[in-house]
């Protein structure tokens, strides 16, 4: 356990070095959020019919999305891709550590540091200047924190799975582009899931991706009644467990048939 914690903390410290990059990225994300808010504003102005989400809720939703973009903004981890391509992944296999847990901890660190670095200032700026609102009550706030941690684990399980799939595809270039954008739309990052056509809802509710964005964000908004939250957190946890198991199984198979790209 100590070894995995060392991996997490070393990577966290490395990422916290790049503060200027984070600042520039932050400015870009604020700008991006403004564009999206204006687009939703125009859509809401063009209808009088009641919608499944109010405009005020959508504004907060957009800013939450900017704050937690890291939850979905990912592809294959570039170091792992590099290792599989160059063959140095052989060293990884030699380490006296469980490889899955090792990669999982690494992706946990790469995700959580930028997440905190961006989320905190985004809450301050969007809350003060752009109409982002706090959760309706303490209960929702606490459940939201739990759901966000769950989303983080789900995101890491998915990334690790994608990295492991590189054992088969080597370059994974096409996959690395397609998967993130599919996740962006299916998780509700591009358009909140309640605004999707009704016929698509059942499928979207079943898939794991709503656990990344839709569930935590709508708990924050108080858009999901308290008594319905527990089954959703269960849904998120079950999917995470299933994806972890699948990843472990694939890694075991991939490592057995691995041909190291040497030279």
């Amino acid at each position, binding site marked *: 356990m100590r070894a995995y914690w060392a991996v997490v903390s070393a990577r966290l410290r490395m990422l916290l070095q790049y503060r200027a*990059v984070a600042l*520039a*990225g932050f*400015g*870009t994300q604020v*700008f*991006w959020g*403004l*564009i999206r808010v*204006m*687009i939703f*504003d*125009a*859509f*809401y*102005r*063009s*209808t009088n019919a009641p*919608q499944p989400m109010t405009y005020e809720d959508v504004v907060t939703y957009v800013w939450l999305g900017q704050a937690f973009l890291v939850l979905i903004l990912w592809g294959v981890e570039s170091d792992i891709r590099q290792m599989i391509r160059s063959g140095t992944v052989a060293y990884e296999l030699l380490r006296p550590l469980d490889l899955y847990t090792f990669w999982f901890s690494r992706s946990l660190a790469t995700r959580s540091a930028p997440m905190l670095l961006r989320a905190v200032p985004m809450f301050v700026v969007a809350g003060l200047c752009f109409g982002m609102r706090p959760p309706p009550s303490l209960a929702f706030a606490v459940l939201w924190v739990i759901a966000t941690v769950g989303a983080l684990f789900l995101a890491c399980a998915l990334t690790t799975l994608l990295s492991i799939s590189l054992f088969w595809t080597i*370059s994974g*270039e*096409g*996959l*690395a*582009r*397609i998967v*993130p*954008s*599919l996740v*962006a*739309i299916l998780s509700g990052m*591009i*358009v909140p899931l309640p*605004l*999707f*056509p009704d016929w698509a809802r059942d499928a979207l509710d079943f898939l794991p991706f709503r656990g990344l964005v839709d569930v935590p964000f709508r708990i924050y908004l108080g858009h999901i009644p308290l008594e319905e939250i527990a089954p959703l957190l269960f849904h998120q946890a079950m999917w995470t467990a299933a994806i972890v198991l699948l990843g472990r199984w694939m890694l075991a198979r991939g490592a057995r048939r691995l041909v190291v790209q040497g030279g």
Partner: protein
Amino acid sequence: MREAFRLYFRYIGVSIRSQMQYRASFLMLSAGHFVATGIEFLGMWVLFDRFRSLGEWSLREVALFYGIVNIAFAIAEAVVRGFDTFSWMVKSGEFDRLLLRPRSTVLQLAGQELQLMRVGRLLQGVFVLFWAASALEVVWSAAKLALVFASVVGGACLFGGLFVLQATLAFWTTETLEIVNTVTYGGVETAQYPLTIYRRWFRRFFTFLVPLASFTYLPALAILDRTSAYGVPAFVAWAAPTVGVLFLVVSFQVWKIGVRHYRSTGS
């Protein structure tokens, strides 16, 4: 001049052949690009399905904007890719080598790479544009088709100019500034919708400072036979795409100033 073009096509030929060595990788990347950018349109469709219209604009009309912007951006991205990755040349001192050669730096950088995988976004934009063109109740005259074509060219030049300006900044900052992405990638996101839907300061920014309106909103007025809410005279709608070309020309002048200021990082 003729020799410069010949050289440019030589460069491009080499770049294409080298990318074609990895055919499977090229196909995967292009397909990935196609899907990734197509999902944006899916998101747009979801919103229109829910809200029916965007002010006085329909999905077909917005699709016209979407198509033009994405085709223009794909061309710009593919052609001026060399400028997009320019900052590493400054950082590594590699730019010195370019300066030693008896040809212009613009030619050498532009010829560095023609990124073929951008065909993914291009095709996707072409599909959407064709759908919009056939679904719209517009009588397509030769003049209107020419205007659509001019808008794409104007847009590609404008985005190209922005990439050149971004590269020019690297002469002073060494590092590429992510903040410039707000007007390139952010510009694409913005210009996919009619500029009228945005707040005034934002609209002005993208009309006068970064003239996105010159190849989207303004020509679209003429194509869709609309009258402008801001009293723009008709000839402006027809002449607007030339602004993009002018923008590119000015960007190259700024680039030349940058080259004069260049100091090698040395290493």
